[in-house]
């Protein structure tokens, strides 16, 4: 049959497999009770910085050279391109008295580095991004374009934020969401103008789940942070922010007009020193005392795979009378014996954290964010939080997904299912992490984190890794500067309860091969794959995931 290529993305092909197989491909069945684990931090023990391997300095040097080369070639291509292919540069020059849409300098990185490996990003998919993800096959055509042949490849999904495996097109939660269609497809008004009983119920369920008095929901996680800080901070407030905080938090802080100080990622000593100095110095110029100090951190950092040191943060905030904001976008659901996030993981009282923010995009297969806090805070926010007044509120099917998935985790709906999901993600995370470590890869982050950044360092290796894994049927995300520090380009593996232990074995075998092929096993200590797999199940359940 002659292949027909289209430039537009084809429609999703019909899936005529039996429902049973489809749902198994979205959420794999548990194959043995051995493959379960409960994750929590031992109370009272200090939270140590996870041990992270270091490559030899040659790797660093090579990475610099790699960037240098790419930049030089980029400039050369720009130089000649402007002369010989002026048409391609039309976007960068003034035309008819109008400035270009964006600057050549500003866009250099994207044009000359990212565009080279553009096929590793934004692979279009179809269907629920569960255990497997169906990516459309495509090949590049010209500068921006792709050609599609209408087929797709089912890849093991290590890329979606689907920690608890709720990305499903059938099952309890989906049925519940479908049922909520009787409330319509949209909220069609802002929350301040009109709410429904479903909104109220959902707010209640979330507040109870995270252990706060009340909660407020917003239709997007980004929008939750981006517009939140102006409600609690003004220019006489100091916000102390972790240097690796998510863009939405930084945007929100900037909009609030508060003064920001940044502390080194997860460095509690420098945080404490900063707070002491700031309280002593007071506001700039006037030296008046700060009105309040807010510490903003994330529960689980999605690029680093490690958690904030919550017990220490609470000690500091209590000692210095600061307020603590924790963004639980990635930790809610994914961490803790009951899936209740970072507080659950460290066994601290959620009321010790002043503002718990989170999103239901990641663990619960819904979309949108919430802010949970004291009644006083939430009442105030209902009137004072701009997304409540000016933006759409959460649409009913999404509310349905939120309510049902939280109820499953709670055990109110389908008792037992939630527990299994929680224990599977905990096991999977430790299993893969230890496996990768023993194979000689350098991975970042805490043992229990479901996000595993696998260090590539050299940006030149990113496309190779991404493409070969794709060809082997594995979908991963590769990131580098500016999303990470310049030197540490990485692949990010996001685990899910939907993945089975057998999938992970298969993944480890393939990754081991590819790792050898691309010299990614930077650690000096490494074991052969057979040896790694032979004891991995028992070893990954030991308290410390040492080599």
């Amino acid at each position, binding site marked *: 049959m002659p292949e027909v290529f289209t430039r537009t993305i084809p429609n999703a092909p019909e899936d005529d497999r039996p429902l049973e197989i489809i749902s198994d491909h979205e959420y794999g069945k548990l194959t043995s009770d051995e493959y379960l684990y409960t994750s929590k931090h031992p109370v009272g023990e200090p939270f140590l910085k996870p041990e992270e391997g270091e490559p030899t300095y040659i790797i660093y040097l090579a990475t610099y050279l790699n960037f240098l080369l790419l930049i030089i070639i980029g400039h050369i291509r720009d130089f000649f391109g402007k002369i010989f292919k002026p048409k391609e540069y039309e976007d960068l020059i003034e035309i008819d*008295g109008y400035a270009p849409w964006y600057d050549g300098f500003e866009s250099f990185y994207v044009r000359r580095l990212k565009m080279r490996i553009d096929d590793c990003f934004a692979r279009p998919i*179809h269907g629920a991004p569960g255990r497997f993800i169906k990516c459309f096959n495509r090949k590049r055509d010209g500068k*921006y374009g792709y050609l599609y042949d209408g087929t797709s490849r089912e890849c093991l999904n290590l890329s979606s934020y689907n920690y608890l495996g709720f990305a499903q097109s059938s099952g309890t939660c989906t049925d519940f969401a479908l049922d909520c269609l009787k409330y319509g497809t949209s909220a069609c008004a802002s929350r301040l103008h009109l709410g429904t009983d479903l909104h109220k119920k959902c707010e209640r369920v979330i507040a109870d789940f995270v252990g706060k008095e009340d909660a407020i929901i917003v239709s997007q996680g980004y929008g939750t942070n981006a517009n939140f800080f102006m409600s609690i901070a003004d220019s006489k407030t100091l916000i102390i922010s972790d240097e690796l905080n998510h863009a939405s938090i930084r945007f929100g802080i900037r909009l609030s007009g508060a003064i920001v100080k940044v502390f080194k990622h997860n460095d509690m000593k420098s945080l404490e020193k900063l707070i002491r100095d700031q309280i002593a110095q007071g506001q700039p110029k006037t030296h008046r005392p700060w009105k309040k100090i807010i510490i903003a951190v994330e529960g689980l950092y999605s690029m680093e795979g490690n958690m904030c040191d919550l017990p220490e943060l609470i000690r500091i905030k209590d000692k210095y009378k600061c*307020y603590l904001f924790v963004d639980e976008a990635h930790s809610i659901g994914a961490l803790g014996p009951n899936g209740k996030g970072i507080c659950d993981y460290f066994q601290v009282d959620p009321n010790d954290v002043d503002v718990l923010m989170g999103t239901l995009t990641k663990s619960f297969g819904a979309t949108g964010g919430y802010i949970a806090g004291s009644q006083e805070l939430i009442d105030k*926010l209902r009137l004072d939080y701009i997304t409540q007044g000016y933006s*759409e509120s959460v649409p009913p099917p999404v509310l349905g997904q939120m309510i049902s998935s939280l109820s499953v985790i709670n055990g109110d709906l389908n008792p037992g299912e939630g527990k299994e999901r929680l224990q599977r993600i905990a096991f999977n995370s430790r299993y893969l992490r230890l496996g990768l470590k023993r194979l000689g890869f350098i991975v970042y982050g805490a043992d229990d984190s479901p996000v595993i950044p696998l260090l590539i360092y050299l940006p030149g290796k990113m496309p190779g890794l991404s493409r070969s894994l794709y060809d082997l049927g594995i979908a991963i995300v590769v990131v580098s500067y500016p999303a990470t520090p310049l030197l540490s380009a990485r692949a990010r593996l996001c685990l899910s309860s939907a993945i089975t232990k057998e999938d992970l074995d298969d993944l480890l075998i393939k990754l081991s091969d590819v790792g050898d092929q691309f010299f990614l096993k930077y650690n000096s200590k490494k074991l052969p794959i057979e040896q790694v797999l032979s004891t991995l199940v028992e070893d990954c359940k030991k308290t410390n995931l040492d080599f």
Partner: protein
Amino acid sequence: MASSLVISTTTTTITSIATEILNRQLSDGQNLPPPPLSQTWQVILNTFIHHFLKFLNLLNKIPGGPVVLRYIKSSYQNDPIRSLFEYCLFIFALTYFFTSKKKENKSEIVKFSSKEIDELCNEWEPEPLVKEVINLQEWQLKSIPEIVGQNQFNLKKIIINNNTYNDEKQSIKNFASQDFLNLNENQRIKDAAEVEIKYAGVGACGPPNFYGTQDVHVRVEEDLAEFLDSEQAIIYGQDYVTAGSVIPAFLKRGDLCVVDRNVNNAVQKALIVSRADIEWFDHNDMDHLNQILTQLKPVLDKQKPIKRRFIVTEGLFANSGDIVNLPKIVELKNKFKYRLFLDESLSIGTLGITGKGVAEHFNIPRAEISITIGSMANSFASSGGFCVGVSSMVHHQRISSNAYVFSASLPPYSAKVTSQAIKVIKENIDSRTGQSKLMTTLHKITNYTYQTLSRSSNTNLNCYFDIVSSPQSPMIHLQLKETYREKLNLPLLYGNSSFITTGKPSQYPNKFDEYFNLECFLLQKVIDLILTKSNILLTRSKIILEHEDLPVLPPHLLINLSASVTKSDIDMLVESLDAVVYSIFKNIQAENDLINLTNEILNY
């Protein structure tokens, strides 16, 4: 940082001596006894030179190092002064590099001992995280309506202020929803959503650039682009963040925008974040705009290279319900070579014979509008926002627009719903007039409502309210008449004007305003009474005064129309509104009457 500073100053003073020693070291390559110098200098120098030589040795080993070494040697031998100069330059670069991280003004920092800091920390008493909702404001919390069941035109049950309204015999007519085309109740839309949820689940579980883009997302972008006659479209996860993400992607420090004074909150915040230079023109005042553009021209003509310039305004204004004077703006923007940013969140799906917004309303090609943003959460009965325009502009957003890059994609079913909604709007186009049937229905009822409202027989309504929205807007804004507001001593505008007068937004949120609160309450009384008496749900503009950066119009009573409203609904609405207005306003004729409402507020 401090130590690097010290080193650099000492090193520059001793360079001259070091030169001599180095001279020997480099030319002979062996240690000669150093020249007689004072003791301390000698120690410093020796260690310095020791380290320097070690460094040179190290350099020799690194690949490429010998070249650098040879360069240092030869440059030194040819011209010691130049070498010294280069050396100073190198040190300068280093110190500059290390100190360039923003440093507070040293003189401002007071030195404290650790004990003093302890004391200060103990003494410090922060304010609470938020100020409590004051009791004068509590009624606002209670007045948020809660529908039991779907947000649709005919409601069965609704709860406001703990009162349940449900009439067995008659449904409550909902004029508070923004579902202008009534698609939220459309079974075909629901079916499309159901099919998609059964295929792909609810959430997209990933940002668009990382496996979050599904076929339906691409489809809806194509559909939107085609519907709005533009090259490409991009979708966002929420309508409110769209402006805040698109504007800063194109407007940077040094760029210029000329903005209508009455733009909505989303655009205000977007402008603050962009840090572009802003000029304000009076609301929809084209002479003023012309004047500003003319004044700016001589300055801008000298600009080299030219910066981006935008005129920023809204299609159908959210704050006042009137329509932008698009033909004149397009003329001006082309004359002065500005681009046009237009927020069509409320106008797309409500204006134009096939719902394509103000551009179609005025018969102006979409290409004249460089950036159009809109919302899918109103007329399309879906969720999220979008932006349409030329390919290179849209493409830039896919990598540089915050809310697109750093947030998960829209749920796939929402994308599907929008596609379906566009299909429904485009159906049944009259081949003779080119009008969409659905849009015609909405336009007809809108027209009828304005006629009915402005009938002279509504004596009370006419006595107390002005219709401030344009007669094509399905969101009808009623504002208390100026003469009446004067009588009650209500101000012309609320909020602050610092953004307009100083160019910088106020550093603090606006304070609670008692009159604003009272005026809102007055409107709420109308809403409550008409709901009780006639089973009609109206709403009012719910401005969050604290976070408005521009002067705020008085609160408005809002009547949101939709395609399923009938003429008899309107007749009933107007008739009972007129009566309700009379019964409420007859008792409030002076400032004191208004202030006496405070008691009622506290007991609401």
